[in-house]
C-alpha cells in the first residue's frame, strides 16, 4: 500500500528565524519595561472608585433636562467651529496638495518638501494647536476655528495629494498632445477626475472635526468643551449626562448624513 503523507513543511530560513527571535525579544523587553516602571496607585484608584461610584454613574444616566437649552447652543457653536474650520482647511489644502503631488507641479523635490510639511502639520494634536491659538487670539471660538483649520489642512492636503497622484494621466497627456494649455488641462482634464473624491474627503474630515471641536473648549477654544470643563469642576454629573447625550446625538446624525452624501457623490 502506498503511504500518503503531507508535503514537507517549507523550511524557515536562518535569516527569518533570527529575525523572529529578535522581534520577540524586543516586544517582550518593551512590555517588561512598561509594566515594571509604570507607577499606578491601584489602592487609591479603587478606593476613589468605590466612594465616587454612586455620585457619578447614576447621575450620568439621569441627564439634567433644564440644561438642554444651554447645551443646545454650545453644541451649535461646536458644529459651527467644525464647519468653518474644515471648510477653511479644504480650501487651503487644494493648492498645497497640488504642490505635494508628484505628477503635477515641479519635480520630486517640491513634492517631497510639500509632503514633509503636511506630515509635520498632522503631527500636532488639535488641542495643542488650540492652546497656541488661544494664547494668540484669546479664549474664544475663533481660536477653535483656527486650530481645526490648521489641524485638518495636514490630513486633507495629504489625502488630496494622494488622489491627484492616482488620476488617469492619459487624459492629461491626450489634452497636452492636442494643444490644450495648462488652464484647460486643469479644468477639463484634472478637476473632473478629482472633484468627487476631494468633496468626499472634505465631508469626512467635517465628521472628524465635529468630534475634535467638541473637546477644544477644555483649553478655552469655545464650543461644548467649555461646558464639559465647568460641569466636571462643579461635579455636576447630571449636566455632564446631558452634554454626553447631546454629543452622541449630534455626532451620530452628522455621521449618518455625511455617509449618505458621500455615497451619492462618489
Amino acid at each position, binding site marked *: 500500500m502506498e503511504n500518503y503523507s503531507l508535503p514537507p513543511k517549507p523550511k524557515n530560513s536562518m535569516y527569518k528565524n533570527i529575525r523572529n527571535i529578535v522581534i520577540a525579544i524586543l516586544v517582550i523587553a518593551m*512590555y517588561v519595561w*512598561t*509594566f515594571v*516602571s*509604570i*507607577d*499606578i496607585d*491601584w489602592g*487609591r*484608584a479603587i478606593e*476613589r*472608585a468605590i466612594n*465616587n*461610584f454612586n455620585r*457619578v*454613574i447614576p447621575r*450620568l444616566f439621569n441627564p439634567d433636562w433644564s440644561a438642554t437649552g444651554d447645551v443646545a447652543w454650545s453644541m451649535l*457653536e461646536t458644529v*459651527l*467651529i467644525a*464647519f*468653518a474650520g474644515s*471648510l477653511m482647511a479644504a480650501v487651503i489644502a487644494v493648492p498645497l496638495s497640488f504642490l505635494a503631488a508628484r505628477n503635477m507641479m515641479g519635480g520630486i523635490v517640491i513634492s517631497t518638501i510639500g509632503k514633509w510639511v503636511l*506630515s*509635520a502639520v498632522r*503631527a*500636532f*494634536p488639535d*488641542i*495643542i494647536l488650540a*492652546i*497656541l491659538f488661544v*494664547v*494668540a*487670539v*484669546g479664549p*474664544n*471660538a*475663533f481660536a*477653535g*476655528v483656527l486650530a481645526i483649520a490648521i489641524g485638518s489642512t495636514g490630513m486633507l492636503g495629504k489625502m488630496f495629494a494622494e488622489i491627484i497622484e492616482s488620476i488617469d494621466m492619459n487624459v492629461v497627456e491626450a489634452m497636452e498632445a492636442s494643444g490644450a494649455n495648462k488652464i484647460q488641462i486643469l479644468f477639463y482634464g484634472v478637476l*473632473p477626475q478629482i472633484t468627487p473624491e476631494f468633496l468626499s474627503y472634505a465631508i469626512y474630515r467635517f465628521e472628524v472635526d465635529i*468630534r*475634535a471641536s*467638541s*473637546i477644544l473648549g*477644555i*483649553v478655552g477654544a*469655545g464650543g461644548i468643551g467649555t461646558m*464639559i*470643563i465647568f460641569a*466636571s469642576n462643579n*461635579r455636576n*454629573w447630571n449636566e*455632564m449626562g446631558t452634554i*454626553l447625550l447631546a*454629543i*452622541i446625538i449630534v455626532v*451620530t446624525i452628522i*455621521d449618518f448624513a455625511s455617509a449618505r452624501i458621500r455615497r451619492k457623490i462618489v
Partner: protein
Amino acid sequence: MTNENNSLTSKKVPPIYPAKTKVQVTLIFFVVLGIYIFSMSWTQRQMAGGFGGALGNMFTVIEKFFPPNTAVISAIWGPMVETIQMAIIATTFAAILTVPLAILAAENITTWKPLYILTRTFLNILRTIPDLVLAVIFVGLFGIGLFPGILALVIFSLGILAKLISETIESVDMHPLEAMRSSGGNVFQVIWYGLIPQVLPQYTSLVLYVFEINIRASVVLGLVGAGGIGLILNQQLGFYNYPNAMMIIILIFVVVIVIEYISTRIREALL
C-alpha cells in the same frame, strides 16, 4: 455635408455638465458659503478687535513662546516616557478586548442578526464620545492619575479598533471557512484555523495604527488630569511660562513623528 455643428473647426464645445447639475451645484455652493459666513461671524462675536486685530496680535504673542527653554528637557523626559507607556498599555488591552467584539460585529461570522446589530450599535455609540470627554469622566470617578487616562484610551481605541477589524473580517475569503465547517469543524476551530491566518497581518497593522492614535491622544490627556506630559504642559501654561510650554510641545511633536515613522515602516513591511 459640412454641418455647422459637426465640423472639426466648430467653436461650440458641448458642455460637460448638464444644466440641472449646474443649478444644483450653484445652490449648494451658496448654502455652504452662507453657513460659512454665519459660522465665521458667530465664532468671532466675542473677539476683541476682530479678525485683523487677532492676526496682528498673533505674531506678538507667538514671540513669547520663543526661544523654547531647552533646560527643562531632563525634567520633562520622565513624564514623556510615562505617556508612551500609557499608550502601550492601553493599546495592548484594547487589542485583546477588541477580538471578541470585532467577531461579534462581523456580519459573516455572527450570523445571528440581533446580536450583530446590538454590537454594531454599541460600537457606534462608543466611537461618538471623544477621548478627552471619557478622560474627564474617569478622572471624576477614579481621581487624578494614570489609571483613568489608560482606561479612557482603552475605551476610546476599542471603538475604532473593533470597527476596523470587523470590517477586515467581513472582507475575508469565506471559502476555506465553509470547507472547514462542512468537514465538521466547530465554531472555534473554524475561527482559529480559517479566520485568524487571514486577518492576522491586517490585525497587527491596525493595532499599530491605533497605537499611533493613542500616542497622539495620550499626550493631551493630562490637560484634564489623566496623567502623562499633558499635566506638566497645563501647569506651565497656567504659570504663563511659555518658553517651557513650547519645549514640551516640541518634544511631543518629535516623539509623535518618530513613533509614527517607525509604525508606518513596520506596517509597510507587514502588508
